[in-house]
């Protein structure tokens, strides 16, 4: 027997209209991003496959594989990223652990020491390190007056300075997710572990630490990806000795106006970033990290 379906067409139309209107609220945002970001970057993809004579060619990519300077740049970029991430973990994890054990009020106060640099301009922080680490800068002056070393050490315009600056900038990105994960751990679990016979150290490594791994992973991932594409701090503190991919891209445009080379590098950078994110998303719920979707 055929069921009676009154108003079916009209109701369906209403439903689509409503969905369209809601989705349409996001259209200015989507439009802007398409025009300013997606299309230009798509164009960059295209340009990377255009050679000097204006036809399709892979010479930009070949150059990257051939020239030793490019190999060094990739190596430097990965080195800096790995070292920065590693140092951030070594320094940031204990601090996060310390703060997570504090009562709420005091913990929030301590968090300000992490958030204050986070909110301060990147340029200001980079400049601060430039001033502190220079030959006649504070660090050298104080170290020499304390007798730590006799001659001023060169700590800026090299890898050391770059690393110090990068670690300082990236620390909050690691500490915040790790702290969040630690705070979410039920303190009763540690009591249970003790009760069941675990020594404090054993309890930490078998109960607490594994539970913080998602946050640690998320934070490290974020730091690593940010380091890969980072420009300002290495450019200032590296003084031309530490050349990362982003700096090469900029110099390719600014100095040589070589769009082919720059965009090829950019594509490599973008593809590596996306690949790492994709691999990580297999192990981590990215949406939970950024709190998105439904």
């Amino acid at each position, binding site marked *: 027997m055929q069921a009676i379906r009154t108003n079916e067409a009209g109701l369906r139309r209403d439903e689509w209209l409503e969905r369209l209107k809601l989705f349409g609220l996001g259209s200015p*945002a*989507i439009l802007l991003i398409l025009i*300013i970001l997606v299309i230009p970057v798509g*164009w960059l993809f295209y340009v990377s496959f255009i050679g000097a004579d204006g036809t399709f060619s892979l010479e930009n990519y070949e150059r990257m594989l051939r020239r030793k300077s490019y190999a060094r740049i990739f190596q430097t970029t990965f080195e800096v990223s790995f070292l920065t991430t590693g140092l951030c973990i070594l320094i940031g994890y204990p601090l996060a652990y310390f*703060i997570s054990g504090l009562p709420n009020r005091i913990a929030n106060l301590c968090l300000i020491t992490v958030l204050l640099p986070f909110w301060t301009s990147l*340029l200001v*922080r980079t400049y601060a390190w430039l001033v502190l680490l220079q030959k006649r800068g504070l660090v050298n002056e104080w170290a020499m007056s304390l007798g730590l070393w006799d001659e001023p050490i060169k700590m800026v315009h090299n890898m050391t300075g770059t690393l110090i600056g990068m670690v300082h900038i990236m620390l909050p990105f690691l500490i915040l997710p790790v702290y969040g994960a630690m705070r979410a751990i039920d303190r009763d679990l*540690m009591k249970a572990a003790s009760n069941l016979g675990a020594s404090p150290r054993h309890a930490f490594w078998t109960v607490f630490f594994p539970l913080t791994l998602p946050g640690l992973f998320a934070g490290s991932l974020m730091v690593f990806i940010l380091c890969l594409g980072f420009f300002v701090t290495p450019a200032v503190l590296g003084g031309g000795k530490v050349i990362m991919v*982003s700096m090469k891209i900029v110099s390719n445009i600014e100095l040589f106006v070589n769009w082919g080379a720059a965009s090829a590098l950019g594509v490599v950078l973008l593809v590596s970033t996306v690949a790492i994110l994709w691999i990580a998303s297999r192990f981590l719920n990215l949406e939970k990290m950024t709190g998105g979707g439904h």
Partner: protein
Amino acid sequence: MLRWFRSPATETQITHGQRLWLYVLAVVIMVLLVTPTLIVIPMSFSDSQYLEFPPETWSMRWYDHYFGSPEWMRATVTSFKAAILTMLLATPIGVLAAYGLHCSKVRFVRAAFVLMITPMMVPVVLVAIGAFYAYVQLQILYTLTGLVLAHTVLALPLVVIVTGSALKGYDMSQEAAARSLGAPRWKAFLTVTLPQIRFAVVTSALLAFLTSFDEVVVAMFISGGDNPTLTRNMFNALRDQIDPTIASISTIMILVTTGMMVLAQLFGQQKEPTRPKD
């Protein structure tokens, strides 16, 4: 005092004494985190070219230099204009987008969300050179318009994420109640939902402002000519030599940032929803 060293600090009964190394380490790290940021402030009052700490002679020399320089002033105005316009553009667009995504039942929501956070995921350098080329074609290179549009795109993911997570924690049945009482959806949003997510909206606006104000790489490429930003000039100055004027500018920037954060706290502060008494 000694007793404190022997009292337990954790659920696993480790004493404070055993954890002393952690406390010392933590304090050292916290000091190292904050000091570089703050030390610029007193150093900016140093009279010498080398910015000593503590300053041997106190002077406003570098501030005079900054305020007295037409280029620096023009750049500052540009930065402020760009930041305010970015804030005014990115916040409504982002809040609406977050609301639309939150209420939307379409299957493309996930894809739309990923699209909206791409500006955060793509390396800034690429955004910068892409925008540079696009603006040359559109002939809006070195204009304020172009700068604001690019900064808005950079700020949008933050607005969407912050507002989105506030909406997640919000009881949408309140909006439904308002609609059942006679308010069309837009009115229900404005009179009921928005007041309750205002902390997130204010924070997003602040983040949008700061994203634009502090932004270096994109500004390096697309601001210039008549409209260089403060950060662009600062960066160029840093690359060449250490101009102590930058210390005074940095201090001012720190004050602006801190000021904004205080404002956000004052305007946006939301009371914790309390539980019913029975």
